[in-house]
Each structure stands twice: as C-alpha cells, then as structure tokens.
C-alpha cells in the first residue's frame, strides 16, 4: 500500500515483529491446507490411473462382459456394468428431472412465499441430507416388503431419484431466480399466458443452468453404491432389462472384486472399473461446467 507513495512526509512504519510473524504463519497455514486438499485428489487419481489404465486401452474392455471370467483368468470387460450404470441413471433422470423442474417452477413461478412452497422447500432440504442407504432402505420397504415386488434395477433407479431430485430442483430454482423479471413482463405484455411464458421464455433462458444441475445430479447417482447393494444383485452377464432382479453396475463391479489379492488378473479389473467410473463421472462434471460457462445467464 505504501510503496507507491512519493510523499516523504508520510511515514508508514512496518507492523511490529510479532504481527509480521503471525501474518507469515497464517500464510504458511493456508498454503499447507491447500496442498493437503489437493494431494489426496492427485493421489487417488494417479493410483487409479496407474493401476487401471492398461485394461481400458483395450477394446474388449468396452465391448465384453465378465461372463465366464474367473478372477484367475485374464480378459473380459466392463460393458455389462457400463450398460447397467447408464441405464439406471437414465431411468432415474427420466423421473427426477421432470419432477425437479416442475417442483422448482412451483417454488419460483406459482407459489412464491406460499405455504405449499415453504413445505416443499423444507422437504427438499431434508431430502438433500438423506443418506443414500436410508433412501435405499425406504425403497426396499416400499417396493419389496409392502408391494411384494422383487429386487430390480427399477427399484435402484427409484432410490436414486430421491438423491437426484434435490440436486435438480435446487439448481433449477437458482436458475429460475436469475431469469430477469423484465423478460416475464415483456411476455405478459404481449398477452402470453403464464404457462406459455414459463415454457417458451423462462425455461429456455434457464436451460443451461438446468442442464448443469442435471449433469451434476447424474454424476452423483452414477457413483452411488449403497442402493445397488440393497436393491439389486450383481451379475457378470449383459442384461438390458431393468425389471429383472440382477443387473451389473460399475460400483458393484468394483465392490464384488475388491477382496482379490493383487497378483490375480481380477485385481487389475477392479481398478480399471474404478477408472472407467471416474472417467464417466468426471466427463459429466466437465460437461456441466462447460454448459454453465457457455450459457448466457450469469449471476447478477
């Protein structure tokens, strides 16, 4: 601050020794804290990449399942698990996205400040803090114990809806808040009904932000393991039917093989599955960030 002044009459004394030392210690502390935070990420990523990269470079990894492959045998791929992960996430999104977007529309466009909006907002707060295992237990209780249906991939998707819904709803809500009122008023002034204003003006303006929320929600549910453990059995074969009681997914593929000793070929497949999962999740995150960057709607 004082360096630029040329006025010799002003005397800017430096802070005393103790204060300078405290200041330096604080700088050292925040630097170390930042390094401590970055190290685990680098460590996890490098471990997964080093142990798993060899298999995913092979095309069989992406095209074959683990059917007939024992931990002692080389070969096979993760196609069955990728199919399961993507399919369950898509079914989940097909339910969670409309519900979340409509919920956000209720909160912002129709029910601002009303009792029902406050109730919904409160429940979404609870939902966003719900542990995934509790969501899984609830679907288990509802579908399997009460309705008497068997375990299935659909049940997993429904449990994932509980986890994805708050992400989509909150990000949509934030985006709808950012849509300027002048746009809505311009539309009303032209005699456009409210619902059409929402569909044709508000939602397109907020589209980028909503997609960001959807991508982040998808990334979250794809990495979830607890509902998979409770609601569906892991299978090594390829299965497209979401109503059958077995379906593979990348997290359960990792979980099924995690106890293998390092010298077996199966051990490497676990890390390759981990790398595949990280790649999918990171890709979704990067996509979300990219969409957020290119959309015109910015924080006021």
């Amino acid at each position: 601050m004082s360096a630029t002044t040329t006025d010799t009459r002003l005397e800017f004394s430096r802070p005393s020794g103790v204060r300078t030392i405290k200041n330096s210690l604080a700088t050292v502390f925040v630097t170390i804290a930042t390094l401590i935070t970055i190290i685990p990420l680098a460590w996890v990523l490098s471990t997964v990449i080093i142990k798993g990269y060899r298999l995913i470079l092979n095309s069989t990894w992406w095209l074959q399942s683990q059917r007939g492959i024992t931990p002692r045998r080389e070969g096979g791929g993760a196609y069955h698990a990728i199919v399961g992960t993507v399919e369950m996430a898509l079914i989940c999104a097909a339910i969670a996205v409309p519900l979340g977007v409509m919920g956000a529309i209720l909160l912002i466009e129709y029910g601002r400040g009303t009792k029902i909006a406050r109730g919904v907002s409160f429940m979404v707060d609870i939902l966003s803090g719900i542990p995934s295992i509790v969501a899984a237990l609830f679907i288990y209780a509802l579908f399997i114990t009460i309705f008497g249906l068997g375990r299935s991939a659909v049940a997993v998707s429904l449990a994932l809806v509980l986890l994805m819904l708050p992400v989509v709803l909150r990000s949509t809500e934030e985006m709808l808040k950012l849509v300027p009122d002048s746009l809505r008023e311009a539309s009303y002034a032209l005699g456009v009904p409210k619902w059409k204003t929402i569909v044709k003006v508000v939602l397109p303006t907020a589209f980028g932000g909503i997609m960001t929320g959807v991508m982040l929600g998808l990334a979250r549910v794809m990495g979830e393991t607890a509902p998979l453990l409770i609601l569906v059995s892991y299978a090594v074969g390829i299965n497209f039917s979401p109503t059958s009681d077995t379906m593979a997914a990348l997290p359960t593929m990792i979980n099924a093989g995690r106890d293998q000793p390092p010298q077996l070929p199966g051990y490497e497949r676990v890390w390759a599955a981990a790398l595949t999962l990280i790649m999918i999740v990171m890709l979704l995150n990067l996509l979300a960030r990219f969409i957020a960057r290119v959309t015109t709607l910015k924080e006021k």
Partner: protein
Amino acid sequence: MAVTDTDATERVEPEPAVLDPSISPVHHETRHSPVPEVAYHVPAPAKIDGVERVEVRSRGVKLAKISRTGDRVFRSLATTSGLLIVLLVLFVGIFLLALALPSLQADQDNFLTSRNWTVAGNELRFGIAGLFWTTVLSSILAMVLAVPVAVGVALCLTMYLHKRVSGPVSFVVDLLAAVPSIIFGLWGLTVLGPFLAPAAEWLISKIGWIPLFGRSVDPKGSIFVASVVLAIMILPIVIAISRDVFAQTPREHIEAALALGATRWEVIRTAVLPHGRSGVISASMLGLGRALGETIAVMIILTTPAQGSPFTPSIFAGGETFASKIANNAAEFDSPSKTGAYIAAGLVLFVVTFAVNAIARIIADRGAKS
C-alpha cells in the same frame, strides 16, 4: 395503458386469423385479467401540411379472450409435483417406522443401550449402542480433521490467491467432490491404510495409555483410517460453503481494517472470520451429516469385529457404523423381523442426520439474519 376508449360503437372485433393462435388463443370465454390486449390496426400514413403523420384513430382497449386452461393444467402439474415431493419425504419416515416397529417390539434387549446384534432365528436381540459409537466417533473425528483445513483453503481461495489462480484451485476442489465414494473406499483400504499404519503405530506407542488411542487388533481397517477418508470426502462441501461465505464479507469491513494498518491475517481475524463464523459452523454440520450417512467407503475400510467381542473405545479399533452395518448385511434381508431390525437402524440414522442438518440450517439462517 393510456389508450382511451372514445368511440365504443366503432369497436371492431379483432380477427382471430390476424393473431397467432399459439400465442394468443382468443376463441375462449375467459379474459386475461392483468394485461389488457390492445386491438391493433395499421394506420394509413397521411400527409398533412407536407409533414407525414400517422393518423391516430383510437379504437379503444380490446381485452382479448385468452384461454386459462393451459395455465390451470400447468399449475396443477407443478402443484402435484410439489405435493409428491412432500409425500415422498413423509413416506420415508412413515414406512421406515412402520416396518421397524414390529422388530423393535420383539427386541429382547434394550434397543438404545445394547451392543448385541442377533437377528437370525426367532429371538431378536439387537441394540444400536455399538453402531452409534462408531458412527459418531468416526464422523466427529472426520469433522475435526477436515474443518481447520477447509477453513484454511477457503481463506486461501478468497483472501490470498489471485482470481486467475483461485479459479483452477476451486475447480480441483470441486473435482474432489465428484470422485465416487467407492473409489475413496478402495483407495483408503489399499493405499491410505498401509500408508497411515506407521503413523498410527507411533501414536499408539506415545499416547496409547489414553483409551481413545489404545492398541487394537487391526490398525489397517481402523476407525482412524475411515475418518481420514471421510475427512477428505467432506472437505469439498465445507470448502465450497466457507468460500462463498468468506467471499461475501463486506468490502467496507476489509478496507476499514486495512486502513487501520492491519496485516492480512489481522484483516481475516477481525473482519472475515467473524462475518463467516455462522456459515463455517453450518458448513461443518452439513459435512458431519454427510459423514454420518456415508456407506460404502466406510464399509470397505472398517474391519468388522467378531460378534460378541469386547468393546474397545479406541479410534484404532474396527467397528461398524449404521450405514455399513445395513449395507454389509443387505443380502440377508429375508425375514420381516430381520429386515425390521436393520430398518430400525436406518431410521435412527435418518433421525440423526435430520437433526444435524436441521441444526446446520438454523445456524445458517440465523447468521444470514444478523
């Protein structure tokens, strides 16, 4: 709407064909109340005194008839979605309670104080004391480890680093949040556990006489390792919220402190930290809530002690949390009484995380008001 209605008799019905029916369907009875539609016409330009003038022939306000059906349908759709969400959450509580109750009534032990977990066979003997201890101990230890680091990082991002550097660092922190928990679990078990073993051994040899740091059987799959992994997992949440709160410190407070000759640390201590305190506390509670409910990472790392083994209060012991107990035994949900016992444990977890999250929100709201 300053258009005056001078000649009502000259009013002409607007031709529906002129208006785009998709924007303004005029063929319905109801009127669109807040915004009147103006019947428009194209006035022929006329030359008066050599000056081109637009003749204003006031035809008056025409309130077009606009359908409200679409609005009604859309509003009820939105309301239904909202109600569905409310019901969903209520059902979570109700169903869990309904299915847990029979098992709780059949429980021969005290549900809150027993450490037993015998759910096979006809006699149910189970309690949550052991699960509760492991869950709370691992989560609180994770919070204690994570919060100082997170505050340091948040300060670094907001007060120290240039925007061009803090952007990428924030990005890396957000990526940390994206890593699935099973991968943290796998990494914690195979890489971090062996790495921390010497440190754990050293701690045991130095302060092992304190029961909390006492020696236990398997230091690899200990609560300590699980807590470190949990700490890494909750770091991004705490950092993100603290960062946002610190960034909102009023510019005037910072400048006032600087004008008084404060060093950067003194600015932080006198202006930034007091302003962000409630936000940081609330962020820590949210992180705690996340740690309490974390399932798969903890399940993979923790060594499950043998049934009936004596209780060790050490962080270097193994154990089972609510979530890991349920997930570990998911394959055994065959009889209603057995399932009910696990659902009862899940219900307790639900209540505990709900309480922690509610406290976090109350603190955050209070901080926002003051």
